[in-house]
């Protein structure tokens, strides 16, 4: 390349350097440090600090609490994402079918997504309040012990999460719906397709790719979800809502086992990376036409 181009390149590198250094310091370095910590037994208040190899991971493999947390994470992720997709698509279709007032509907929908997760969680904490919460007051005599019953706590947390994140899926689908040309539907009508057939044979396949993207985002977020269950139940009655992230947090900051907590964090990281990789492969091979 010419001298001018080389100089421009050098300048570009210099401008990018602060960002790269900052990102490296804030993400790569702590990431490597956490992996290093996970290979040690480190408990500061007992002056324990020694290399332990894979002992932490070996313990996790047989730890019932870890497997319980993994199961709850899986249930939460699957339940939350499934509900979000179904309700999100339904909401997008409903708004798309509206003739007037779309802006109002969209604004109301986005209100839930715009709220910080912790604020949404606090909101639901009050809704789920056993005696003064709106839901139980409305239910009267049939009041449900939302956050105190181990069987109801996880569904309650899933509901709170779906309320907050469904608009994300809805907005993505709505934007895609707007891009579908009207003559596709006209042609379907001419061919005699009913509403259900239009929905299943035309609309949903066309939404397919964007839905996959939305599911990718939502799955990764749900696997890492922390604030909603931390605020609502703190891990739940008898660990009924303790996900892997909560387990990692408790191990790290409550029991102060830095090495062990780091091991759990690394497992969460590996899980998220594995899921992301699987999804990206799916997207790349292109299961549906764009």
């Amino acid at each position, binding site marked *: 390349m010419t001298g001018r181009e080389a100089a421009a390149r050098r*300048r570009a590198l210099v401008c990018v350097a602060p960002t790269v250094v900052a990102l490296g310091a804030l993400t790569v370095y702590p990431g490597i440090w956490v992996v290093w910590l996970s290979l040690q037994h480190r408990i*500061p208040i007992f002056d324990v600090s020694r290399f332990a190899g894979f002992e932490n991971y070996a313990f996790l493999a047989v730890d019932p609490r870890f497997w319980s947390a993994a199961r709850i994470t899986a249930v939460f992720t699957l339940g939350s994402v499934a509900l979000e997709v179904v309700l999100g698509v339904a909401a997008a279709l409903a708004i798309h079918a509206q003739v007037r007032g779309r802006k109002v509907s969209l604004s109301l929908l986005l209100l839930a997504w715009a709220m910080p997760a912790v604020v949404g969680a606090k909101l639901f904490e009050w809704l789920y309040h056993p*005696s003064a919460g709106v839901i139980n007051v409305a239910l009267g005599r049939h009041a449900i012990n939302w956050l105190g019953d181990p069987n109801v706590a996880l569904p309650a947390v899933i509901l709170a999460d779906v309320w907050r994140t469904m608009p994300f899926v809805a907005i993505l689908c709505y934007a895609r719906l707007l891009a579908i040309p009207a003559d596709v539907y006209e042609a379907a009508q001419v061919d005699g397709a009913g509403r259900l057939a239009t929905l299943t044979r035309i609309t949903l396949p066309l939404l397919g790719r964007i839905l996959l993207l939305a599911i990718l985002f939502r799955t990764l977020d749900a696997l890492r979800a922390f604030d909603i269950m931390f605020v609502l139940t703190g891990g739940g009655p008898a660990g009924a809502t303790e996900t892997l992230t909560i387990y990692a947090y408790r191990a790290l900051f409550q029991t102060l086992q830095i090495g062990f907590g780091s091991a759990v964090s690394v497992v969460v990281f590996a899980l998220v990376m594995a899921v992301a990789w699987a999804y990206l492969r799916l997207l790349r091979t292109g299961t549906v036409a764009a």
Partner: protein
Amino acid sequence: MSVIGRRSAWALGLMAWLLALGGCGAGHERGPVTLVFKYARILGNADPLPELLRAFEAAHPDVRVKGEALPWASDDQHQFYVINLEGRSPGFDVMMLDCIWVPEFARAGWLLDLTSQLAPDELAPYFPSAVASATYNGRVWALPWNFNVGLLYYRADLLTKYGLRPPETFEEMIDQVRRIRAGERDPALNGYVWQGKQYEGLVVNVLEAFWANGTTVMEDDGKVFPDPARAADALKFLRGLITMGVSPAWTTAADEELSRRAFGDGHAIFLRNWPYAMDLFEGQGSAVRGKVAFASLPGRARGAPGVGSTGGAHLGVSSSCGSARRCRGWRRSRWRGARGRSSRTTCCSRPRSSRSSRRRSSA
């Protein structure tokens, strides 16, 4: 790159770097020393701390105190302290510690050893259990400040109405609950509310249940669960309170505030809580104003007498405190301030206990 000249681009970059670096680590300023004091917001109608801090500043013009509040939940404070103290540059100097953390933080090396600064009889006026929880390995690591004990609050009006005295045993209490509920016929009236959510408060309630049943978690010689059968029985009893309906189903989601509100709205006969609640019950507009009294927690019929867990807060100094002179000055002054002002932070205004509270050391 022809729009921004080469030189000005470099200058901009350099400026950005310098600002970023210079922003960290502000040097010590001359003049009055500023100390940061981390405390948990004291629940209740009047927070006495800002007043106390201003009085301290007036008495010691060379020290300014910046009070920063933490969430009131003990677990949240613990996590905040651990995250910051483990990082060795906490950004605060004096902290309000729950009494159970002092040995933990002392062992981790996060607290300043105060033993050398104390006069021989300095700690004599304090409760022995408070001093014991501030001591570790024979050295004093924090100064006792607030003292808390678990109490049984009860609706004096309801008990008097049915000619009952505050229960000495849980079995008696259950019987009283049945009688009062049968008489009142109020479906919204709960019997005994306590803290059963999965957090630090549950540990306190369970410990009190153990002690009332005559057993403990760990003996002095270090043996864990010396009497597992009694411990299991205590837990079964607590669970039984919920399944029997004496305590509401939402007990497993209840913390201090939730249970306090239920009782304060008139929906419970008995409540287990800390002394702070009394001020709130006696406050303006309270539904139970003038109707609440407290007593010691009941025991079990064949167990030990009831015992309330001692709680409370101590004041500790971070070991990574900047200059020794600052720390010494602070400690001496603060501690005098704490002694003189301890009565103002007492939470009970006009305690109406029908039996003198037996505060057994159970820390």
